[in-house]
């Protein structure tokens, strides 16, 4: 029932991979296939990698991406959206380019269970870990117990639909502008699906913008349904060292998105709504 905390250092590796394919999907979305990622083979849905191209000293820090899939022969896929300089460089990168990879990192979503329906809620580029979760369920022939509620601003934001249908996944699409699927937010669709499944064993798993995740978590809490969310925060190291990716948590002042998360049991982080932890001297620059 708990998000799987990946004990630090268990299998993570720092290695060099190569881009073997860059599939541009439009709307700023693209799927990078990396080769040489054998050490990611055992990664679970929700885990992520820190990656960095061979682009000098600026941008400096590696970027976090959830895994979309790990394939045979040491391939790994990520789905990314261009939002800034790092992703723009990745979007332009070509097959053959070298990429430094650190991973697999962080916690993962709980495994699919035969007796429970999993409502997978993806907002925009939050799709990858849930896609991987659905693929795992399909692999175990439990995909009938999974539903994907997938929303975006417009039609451009909904990608890999063909692949998800091929998994046999039940898809509920929403767009804010109504271009594809139901007009509105994923939260509305989630409420409808929760209502639909009322009385049966349910879990919610979600990934997307943090604001969406808080809304999803509140809905799940109100319905008494267990909920797991994959959070985002600025990261430098990805391995619990810099203490940069702190988020206020219920049980203690802070939890770390990279090492305690990114997948959290919503009950553990929900109540604290962004207030700082115990007061400290304000301007201490370290």
């Amino acid at each position: 029932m708990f998000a799987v905390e990946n004990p630090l250092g268990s299998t993570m590796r720092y290695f060099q991979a190569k881009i073997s394919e860059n599939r541009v999907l439009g709307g700023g979305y693209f799927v990078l296939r990396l080769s040489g990622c054998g050490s990611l083979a055992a990664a679970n849905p929700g885990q992520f990698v820190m990656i960095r191209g061979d682009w000098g000293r600026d941008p400096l820090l590696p970027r976090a991406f959830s895994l979309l899939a790990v394939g045979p022969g040491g391939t790994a896929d990520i789905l990314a959206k261009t939002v800034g300089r790092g992703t723009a460089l990745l979007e332009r990168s070509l097959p053959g380019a070298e990429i430094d990879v650190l991973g697999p990192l962080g916690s993962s979503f709980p495994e699919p269970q035969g007796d429970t329906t999993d409502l997978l809620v993806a907002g925009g580029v939050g799709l990858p870990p849930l896609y991987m979760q659905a693929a795992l369920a399909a692999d175990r022939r439990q995909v009938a117990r999974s539903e994907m509620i997938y929303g975006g601003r417009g039609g451009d934001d909904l990608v890999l639909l063909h692949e998800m249908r091929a998994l046999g996944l039940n898809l509920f699409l929403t767009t804010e502008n109504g271009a594809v699927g139901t007009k509105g937010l994923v939260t509305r669709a989630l409420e409808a699906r929760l209502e639909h499944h009322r009385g049966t064993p349910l879990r919610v798993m979600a990934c997307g913008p943090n604001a969406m995740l808080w809304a999803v978590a509140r809905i799940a809490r109100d319905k008494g349904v267990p909920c797991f969310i994959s959070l985002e925060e600025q990261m430098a190291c990805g391995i619990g060292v810099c203490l940069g990716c702190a988020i206020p948590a219920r049980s203690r002042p802070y939890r770390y998105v990279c090492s305690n998360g990114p997948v959290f049991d919503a009950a553990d982080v929900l109540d604290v709504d962004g207030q700082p932890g115990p007061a400290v001297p304000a301007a201490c620059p370290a």
Partner: protein
Amino acid sequence: MSAAVNLAIETGGIAFRNPILTASGTFGYGKEFEGLTDLRAIGGLVTKGISPKPRFGNATPRICETASGMLNSIGLENVGVEGFERDKLPFLRECGTRVLVNFFGATFDEYVDCGARLDALDGVDGLEMNVSCPNIKAGGIEFGTDPRVLRDLVRACRAVVKKPLWVKLTPNTSDIVALAVACAEGGADGLSIINTITGMAIDARTRRPKIATIFGGLSGPAIKPIALRMVYQVRRAGVSLPISGIGGIQDATDAIEFFLAGASTVQIGTQSFVDPDASGRIVRDLEARLAADGIRDVRELVGALSVG
């Protein structure tokens, strides 16, 4: 690599296998890097800054990227002396490299208390004082910016610390040499130059600071020219303490630049986030580089800048 290259150096009261250390706050308590870089290959590591009591750190967000650098305002979050001894030290005793413990306090007394307690711990090879902390009694001005306050603070800690005591200088000053001299007068065994430079970043869209505490510490390659300058200024002024050079070091060439400027060890900071194997890689590259250049001993480089 040729076995003929000597990387070993005894400096600041500690004998190091080689002069490549890792910087406080960027290498956790060492264990986090197991399997990512070879702890037995690096010269030493400096722990996250320890205070007498555990601290939870600053509000979030705490970090952001800047041009060739980053800002952080972690707020000196740490496990405290007891937590350090109980949870971190057992691993560090066995980790196969030198261990310096970075420490600080919110008051004079806290510094002295913290220094004394860490000094007593088996497995600690030396202490590094972080004096870039706001002195609450003095209106939040950093302890380390006033030479007199700094000298007195170092002297007070020196009186209780028997192990090698290094002081990590703040670069937020118009006169780094005066700070170095104050440390020498206070009885320090070594200087670490530099800590982060106070900076700020703003999100133009939200009109808010990018980190919650408004100000943070700038680190990374962006600050290397400033760090190198300060190391050289202190060296040139003839301050007798050995220097551990810190600031934006990314590779063996950068490390060599700091040696030439006068550092006898260097510390790898932000680069361990960019490349967790950075410190190990720099040791390997440094050895290969010296071998290729026919330099037998890394100590030949220290202060060997030619300015004629």
